[in-house]
């Protein structure tokens, strides 16, 4: 695992070490330059101090182990007069002034000068000077090297102290119950940690919002599931109580309707949960699913799917006008939306009625509309806002209510007009789903009167990019 503290210690120590090394190297170089100047001056002075008159050769002087300064003296005619260290392999030539010679025994600094009649050459091993410089450098850096472990410990503890607020935040997050989504305290936090805590708080806030939406949704859903469940339980008990085959068949029929209604509600709930803005904000964005959709083909497909049901109910469902429109969106979600709208229209349109579906583009306004106009009872203007609320159901249209009232005949068969019953017992979710899916696609849903004033016209307006 990557540890900030370990990384800091390693990197800081490495940098300090490199710095110390560099300082040592520079000290060494500086000391070398100074030692050179000093020793060169010394060589010069020594040369000047040698006797200027000619003297006889003293070749083969005793071999001194100390090779501090090697001296050679020639006469002007090239005859060597003196050589202090014959074993030292110095060239037998002399260039006047300073020079550095490379020999098998290292580099030598050589100074040659003419002193009187003689040519004097003084040589000194460079190692002497280098050792001196190295000594200076070493004395400069060793205290730093000794301090290095201490520095490491200091960095370790300072970094630890600096990271302590992170530990505090970690503990605060750790000790939370999963449903505690109130913001973390961000006072007295270092500026480096505060943005992290702020970002976390922002996320917590969004999560809390999403969770609230989900909670409200689940509460509503739980409440709404009770009605179909109650119906199922009653239908099941009636089936148990059935005394003969006819009653049993009828009870089974009712039970089947009850099950399909419960199934439909659950399907709608799932569709709504999928279209719920909060849930999509948490998971993948809708735009991730966006693909080019042929609106005309999609709408025609939905109409085709509902044609059998419509004709069975005696409703004339058809496409009145369709222009080719391409939009970008989630085809599955859009299909759910149009199916819901057509389903509603088929449900509320009485036998002999008519449903016109149209796809139009308004290039000048930059939008495309899908219109579904039915000849049903319509929705009064003051209800048009509320019908988009989850689980809101319009009061049953009067003709249906009357039908039910009158269905209370003594004969049990008379109230098996289950068609009427299924007709209007929707989930109360259809238009909420439509609204959510439209919003996801940046589309607007409008409820208006039909052109001839009877029934409802639903317009889904897509913006064309």
């Amino acid at each position, binding site marked *: 695992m990557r540890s900030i503290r370990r990384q800091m210690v390693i990197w800081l120590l490495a940098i300090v070490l490199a710095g110390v090394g560099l300082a040592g190297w520079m000290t060494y170089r500086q000391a070398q330059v100074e030692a050179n100047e000093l020793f060169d001056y010394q060589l010069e002075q020594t040369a000047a101090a040698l006797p200027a008159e000619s003297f006889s050769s003293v070749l083969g002087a005793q071999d001194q182990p100390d090779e501090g300064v090697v001296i050679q003296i020639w006469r002007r005619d090239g005859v060597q007069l003196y050589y202090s260290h014959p074993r030292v392999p110095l060239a037998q030539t002399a260039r006047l002034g300073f020079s550095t010679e490379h020999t098998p025994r290292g580099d030598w600094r050589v100074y040659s000068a003419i002193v009187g009649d003689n040519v004097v050459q003084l040589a000194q091993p460079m190692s002497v000077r280098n050792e001196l410089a190295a000594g200076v450098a070493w004395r400069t850096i060793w205290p730093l090297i000794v301090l290095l472990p201490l520095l490491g410990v200091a960095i370790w503890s300072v970094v630890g102290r600096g990271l302590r607020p992170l530990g505090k935040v970690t503990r605060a997050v750790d000790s939370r119950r999963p449903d505690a989504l109130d913001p973390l305290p961000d006072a007295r936090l270092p500026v480096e940690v505060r943005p992290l805590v702020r970002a976390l708080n922002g996320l917590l806030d969004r999560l809390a919002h999403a969770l609230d939406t989900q909670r409200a949704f689940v509460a509503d859903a739980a409440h709404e599931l009770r009605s179909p469940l109650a119906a199922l339980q*009653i239908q099941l008990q009636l089936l148990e109580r059935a005394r003969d085959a006819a009653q049993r068949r009828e009870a089974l029929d009712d039970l089947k309707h009850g099950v399909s209604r419960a199934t439909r509600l659950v399907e709608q709930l799932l569709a709504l949960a999928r279209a719920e803005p909060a849930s999509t904000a948490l998971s993948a964005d809708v735009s991730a699913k966006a693909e080019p959709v042929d609106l005309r083909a999609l709408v025609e497909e939905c109409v085709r799917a509902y044609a059998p049901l419509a004709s069975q109910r005696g409703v004339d469902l058809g496409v009145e006008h369709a222009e080719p429109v391409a939009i970008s969106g989630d085809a599955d979600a859009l299909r759910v939306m149009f199916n819901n709208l057509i389903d509603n229209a088929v449900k509320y349109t009485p036998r002999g009625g008519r449903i016109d579906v149209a796809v139009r583009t308004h290039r000048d306004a930059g939008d495309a509309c899908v219109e579904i106009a039915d000849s049903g009872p319509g929705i009064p203007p003051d209800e048009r806002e509320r019908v988009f609320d989850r689980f809101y159901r319009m009061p049953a249209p009067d003709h249906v209510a009357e039908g039910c009232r009158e269905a*209370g005949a003594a004969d049990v068969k008379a109230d098996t007009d*289950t068609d009427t019953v299924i007709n209007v017992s929707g989930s109360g979710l259809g238009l909420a789903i439509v609204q959510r899916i439209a919003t996801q696609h940046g589309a607007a849903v409008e409820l208006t009167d039909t052109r001839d004033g009877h029934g409802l016209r639903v317009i889904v307006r897509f913006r064309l990019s």
Partner: protein
Amino acid sequence: MRVLLVEDDQMIAAGVRKALRADGWAVDWVQDGAAALAAADGESYDLMLLDLGLPKRDGIDVLRSLRAKRCKVPVLITTARDAVAERVKGLDAGADDYLIKPFDLDELGARMRALVRRHAGRTDAVIRAGAVTVNPATREVLLDGAGVALSAREFALLDALIARPGAVLSKSQLEEKIYGWGEEIGSNAVEVYIHALRKKLGADFIRNVRGLGYMIPKEA
């Protein structure tokens, strides 16, 4: 016994109505709060089954206006609202009992019978008159300890009469007790059922009060 069923869910209403009718109840069904108030104004019911989430007027609202009008009909709330606060609110608004959906039909029947019994001031689940014993729960009728088989309508008629011994019920009151709205009433159906009951339970068990109606005499 005549019950007003106030329920906007048509499937539930259809099922409950079927079950209650099979038990001999006369059931009138309305789907919204306004209709419930109108019905309670116009007819006399032995019981009201009230859903709370209703279109037009909320169930609690209906209940409050009923009680404000001094209507004493026993009210059993049947609702999906299961929170304790909701139950308290319902009972405090004047309901006599509270049943949460989904419910068991047997339990619904038992609670309805209990409410009717309590409303009539009886504590015994079994009603006795002379040699006849009626158990509304099991719909068992005994004559001198021996079981008597009655049809649903015959039982409903007997149940209505025996609930208040000594009270005279007119033919139309009896019709009201045994037929819900829209149920076809035979022209002399009540006489036919009375005749059948007398045949099964003894000729003078049900007395005819001329010009007024029928009664089961109070025991001395």
